[in-house]
């Protein structure tokens, strides 16, 4: 098999030594089937054992290997080296998050937001298991199916300038996941979830840049979820204005 050499320019940040991150170049021989994550693993195994990054599944399921590859948030396990042939490949930590070390960013903010929207089915009264499952038709499933594909990789947050400008913004993935439950026919938690997503730093912060939906590696469309949630909020608010006692 033929081998090429890729130049990988990786952000290094060693908080115990450096005040600021810097770039370090590594030469990595590669085959056609190798991805950026393979190159990072090659560097760690053969060139520099101190390089730090997150990874786990190597197949676009776990969502832990996200980084800015050539300026765009991507899963490093899904970015082939040969696509950058002849160019230096810049690998930087996901934008907008603070950097702990090298490519590892602090995920606390996102983890809190994820819990905040209560990503589980809420029932006013749980029925006992003997009564059987909560049934759902194929059409009802289709209404939210794409939004349940999120793997929490945070690429959408890294792509979102609104989040970059205001970290209080609830953000694409959390709202998309909230919408996944709002649209689920089995869920009865609208009264709990609407106040959270319709909070001032919720959907209203979004100015429809749309980049979240462009970078999502799982085909989720957070922009759509946010817009739908805005429309639901505006119609509910107008309804309660016209009929203060009536419809919710």
């Amino acid at each position, binding site marked *: 098999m033929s081998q090429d050499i890729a130049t990988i320019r990786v952000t290094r940040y060693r908080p115990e030594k450096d005040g600021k*991150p810097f770039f370090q170049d590594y030469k990595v021989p590669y085959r056609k089937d190798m991805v950026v994550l393979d190159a990072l693993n090659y560097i760690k195994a053969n060139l520099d054992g101190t390089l730090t990054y997150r990874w786990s599944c190597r197949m676009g399921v776990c969502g832990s290997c996200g980084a800015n590859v050539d300026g765009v948030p991507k899963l490093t396990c899904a970015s082939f080296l040969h696509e950058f042939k002849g160019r230096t490949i810049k690998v930087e930590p996901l934008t907008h998050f603070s950097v702990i070390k090298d490519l590892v960013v602090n995920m606390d903010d996102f983890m809190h937001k994820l819990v905040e929207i209560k990503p589980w089915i809420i029932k006013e009264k749980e029925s006992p298991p003997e009564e059987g499952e909560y049934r759902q038709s194929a059409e009802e499933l289709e209404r939210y199916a794409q939004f349940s594909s999120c793997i929490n990789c945070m690429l959408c947050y890294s792509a979102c300038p609104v989040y970059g400008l205001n970290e209080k913004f609830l953000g694409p993935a959390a709202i998309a996941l909230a919408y996944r439950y709002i649209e689920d026919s089995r869920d009865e938690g609208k009264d709990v979830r609407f106040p959270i997503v319709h909070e001032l730093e919720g959907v209203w912060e979004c100015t429809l840049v749309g980049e979240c939906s462009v970078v999502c590696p799982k085909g989720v469309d957070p922009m759509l979820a946010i*817009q739908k949630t805005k*429309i639901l909020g505006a119609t509910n608010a107008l309804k309660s204005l016209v009929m203060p006692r009536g419809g919710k």
Partner: protein
Amino acid sequence: MSKEKPFPEYRRKLGPGWWLSNSHFTRYMIREWTSFFVALFSLIYIYEISLFASGAKDSALALMRNPGIIAFNIVALPFTLYHAFTWFYLIGKVQPIKLGKTTSKPWQALLVNIVLLLIISYAVIQILVLR
């Protein structure tokens, strides 16, 4: 276990030039700036209506023929149309229409709404100006 963080994290801030870093962001910023032209035309026109209402029709018409105002309007029209086209496209993305098993694409919403825009504009001219 201590909760203290032993080493500082590196925080990054988004500068005012962020929209130049990516062509999608640049197009987004152009789209948002259409609002400047929409708003400023509205304000200028409100001023012209006020001149009409206070009997200074001649100065209102002179203002409309001011070369600076004409130049602004010639720029404002394409920007407003750009707002319209991006708005139509986004309608198609957010509210696609389902017919049987096929779902409409955003560019179809764009085309249908452009035709609608032409019909509405022609109707305005026919009903409010020519008749």
